[in-house]
């Protein structure tokens, strides 16, 4: 049984990851701004906003006290607001950067001491195909995830001393809350640009989570794997 921390755990992909890891018999610590509906003896939920340093600090103090260590940190918490660059309010850009990039930065930093106590410590970040595809209407979102990708590569180098691997998953469009505001036509056009021209499923992401978590994946770090054949 591994100790796995999942941020953004209350819905969408985060919830799917939580349920998947619980089904595998792991102890899962979830965090989200809201409460969780998950009821499982191995699930422990904390309400925290990853964009607020004090809340992240308090979260990791509680985790340390309750669980001593973690094996895996999955930085899944994210926000996406599609809008034309010219029309994107500064406040929305700031919030996107704060949750997607700063949240990943702070959680990864605070997790180092807990991960060091694990035999196979992992950080798994979430990116998006919007980065390599430079998608219109996603200036703030794609830039925040581009920052996450750079962070992933730098962390991979710096934390290899502690045997911590750090990789990222770049999902192609999946029907989750995150893209609920995007038109079907836009999604179809996007999917047509993929090598594999179909919508991804949460299972495709879960497969990569499993892959990065495997002890045999200890030579894989600093990698960004996109779904759908995007490169």
């Amino acid at each position, binding site marked *: 049984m591994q100790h796995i921390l999942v941020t953004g755990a209350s819905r969408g992909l985060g919830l799917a990851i939580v349920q998947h890891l619980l089904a595998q018999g792991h102890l899962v610590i979830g965090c989200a701004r809201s409460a969780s509906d998950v009821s499982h003896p191995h699930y422990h939920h904390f309400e925290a906003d990853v964009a607020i340093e004090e809340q992240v*600090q308090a979260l990791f*103090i509680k985790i*340390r006290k309750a669980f001593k260590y973690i094996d895996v940190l999955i930085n899944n918490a994210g926000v996406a607001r599609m809008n034309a660059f010219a029309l994107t309010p500064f406040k929305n850009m700031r919030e996107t950067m704060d949750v997607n990039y700063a949240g990943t930065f702070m959680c990864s930093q605070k997790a*180092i*001491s807990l991960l*060091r106590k694990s035999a196979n410590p992992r950080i798994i970040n979430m990116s998006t195909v919007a980065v390599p595809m430079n998608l219109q209407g996603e200036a703030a979102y794609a830039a925040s995830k581009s920052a996450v990708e750079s962070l992933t590569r730098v962390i991979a180098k*710096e934390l290899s*001393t*502690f045997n911590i691997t750090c990789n990222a998953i770049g999902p192609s469009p999946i029907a989750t809350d995150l893209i609920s505001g995007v038109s079907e036509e836009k999604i179809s056009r996007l999917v047509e640009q993929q090598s594999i021209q179909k919508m991804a499923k949460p299972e495709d992401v879960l497969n990569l989570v499993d892959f990065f978590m495997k002890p045999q994946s200890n030579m894989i770090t600093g990698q960004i794997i996109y779904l759908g054949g995007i490169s």
Partner: protein
Amino acid sequence: MTHNEIQSLVLAAIELTNQSREDAEQVPVSIDTPLFGKQGYLDSMGLVALLIDIEDMLQDQDINVSLSDERAMSAANSPFKNVSSLVEHIDHLLKGE
């Protein structure tokens, strides 16, 4: 936490760090030991490991403090230059200075 208690904690953290270092890389457990920078015993990740150990030991005493500092990698005035400056740095942080 008194200055002497902080000093003892830092020296204990160095002893802990030494447990995972090769014989040739042992860090002298002394207040005069240069830690980081010119003639320092630690590289940047060695310093990170030591600071994480110190933060952990402080947390065991319910003291939550982040030792990160924008001057960390500064050659001129890094608070991590030697054991003595590190103890001063922690003392200032705990006093909220």
